[in-house]
């Protein structure tokens, strides 16, 4: 350890320190602006409570939906040779590099009631309108979060040695048993990492959500949208909510770690 750290040049260590400061300073700056005395009152305000509820509900639903769509996709990308695999991979990466607002416009083009490819049919045949609804928020968040899950799972599936699954098959395990008893436990670390990244991305989503699902308080206004909307009318509330988002994110990271330390040290 010591020998490694002494081999790290001083300018590299200095650079790393700058990097840490660069990431930490804005957080400190945010904490400085939080009005601690009115924090509780701000957080229990109706608009704030609505935004938090919608954010948590939608981000969890989006993560589940991303898992349902992402696991089969990652499986095929990792283990199958098929024509157009590179194309599918590029498609998976696209929402990651696309500006979220453009993602929102694209979603309108697909599921918008008046101008969308499927939106008109969804509305006239099934009576479903995704725009300006909670489902719209979930769809927008899934769209931007899915790549993170697919990438994590694909990496995980590639790194699993298939001999365990093969021996399970030889021993007569059905596909389903094999998946639940062998593949899933081996995949668990990547799965947790992927879910974590996807959830975090969904929770922080702004551009696609406001474009596709609008900004309706109590219906589609998520916490990031509420922070932006309140920044001018009620800065104290915006900072309070921002602080809570930081706390939730840190809490999830720490909580996840502790749980795994406890569970992993048998």
């Amino acid at each position: 350890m010591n020998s490694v750290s002494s081999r790290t040049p001083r300018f590299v260590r200095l650079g790393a320190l700058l990097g840490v400061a660069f990431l930490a300073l804005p957080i400190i700056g945010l904490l400085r602006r939080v009005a601690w005395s009115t924090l509780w009152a701000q957080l229990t305000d109706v608009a704030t409570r609505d935004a938090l509820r919608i954010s948590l509900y939608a981000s969890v639903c989006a993560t589940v939906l991303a898992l349902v769509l992402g696991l089969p996709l990652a499986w095929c990308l990792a283990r199958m040779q098929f024509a157009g695999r590179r194309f599918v991979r590029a498609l998976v990466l696209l929402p990651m590099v696309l500006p979220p607002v453009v993602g929102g416009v694209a979603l309108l083009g697909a599921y918008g009631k008046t101008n969308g490819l499927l939106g008109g049919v969804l509305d006239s045949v099934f009576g479903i309108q995704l725009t300006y609804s909670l489902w719209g928020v979930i769809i927008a968040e899934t769209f931007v979060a899915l790549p993170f899950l697919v990438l994590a799972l694909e990496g995980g599936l590639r790194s699993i040695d298939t001999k365990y699954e093969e021996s399970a098959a030889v021993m007569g395990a059905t596909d389903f048993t094999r998946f639940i008893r062998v593949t899933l436990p081996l995949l668990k670390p990547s799965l947790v990492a992927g879910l974590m990244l996807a959830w975090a991305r969904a929770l922080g989503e702004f551009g696609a959500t406001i474009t596709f699902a609008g900004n309706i308080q109590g219906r589609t206004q998520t916490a990031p949208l509420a922070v932006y909307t309140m920044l001018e009318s009620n800065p104290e509330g915006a900072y309070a909510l921002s602080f809570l988002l930081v706390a939730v994110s840190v809490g999830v990271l720490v909580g996840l770690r502790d749980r795994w330390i406890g569970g992993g040290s048998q």
Partner: protein
Amino acid sequence: MVSTIWSSVDGVYSLTVTILAKARSLVVVLPIFMAVAGTPVQAERIVAKKVTVTVSAAASLANSYGEIGKQFEKANPTIKVRFNFASSSSLVSQIQSGAPSDVIAAADLTSFDKLLATGNVVKSPQVFARNSMQLVVKPGNPLRISSIADLSKASVVSLCAKTVPCGGYAATVLSRYGVVIPESKITRGVDATATLNAVSTGDADAAIVYTTDASSAKKSVFVIAIPASKNVNASYGIAVIRGSKNSKQAEAFVQFVVSPAGQKVLKTFGFLAP
């Protein structure tokens, strides 16, 4: 176990890096993109004598000021105008927190009261245009909305955020009609443009927007006039920001906006004379 999770996070990074590295097209595209993005900077360097004036203007001025900017630059070859369009209330907080700006043009006059109070402008603004509000709905008016009083037929109404001038004007119009729309049916746009977009490209049924924005979007929305008796008189003001390093050039821009040439442009975009 913990380390495996964190190393999986690492795995995601490295996988992304690998995939991106393999995407050869990106390697080709990126230098081109950077070259294109870099061009204006180089162009600026060649004519280094040019002074840049940054004008923070209300989103509803985006079209008209774009044209005014072109004409102003033509008349003043040594000055380059750079615009920062956002809601007037955003502009006020940007300037109060030290955003580098030389001129502010806002869609109401209370914005200037705030800036006068914090000392960001020295004099009262010059009123350079007036505007009013209209109701816009989907093309063909599928819900058969004939006035503000019919807004209860709409399931989603797009209005500007309460703190943004157009949000305040919309609230005034609604109260003159005695119409109350429940907050659960209102989607709040961050500025005038976003509020209109919710109807023109999104699925909102109706929006209350500026007359000028409504007429420039005539192809994608159906406009329902709000009679003058119930309408508002939105006054637009402009002022030089205190501490501007280019206050002379900034003042020249302000004078151009209130000059006959500037007024002519504003008129063609549907603004009323002050």
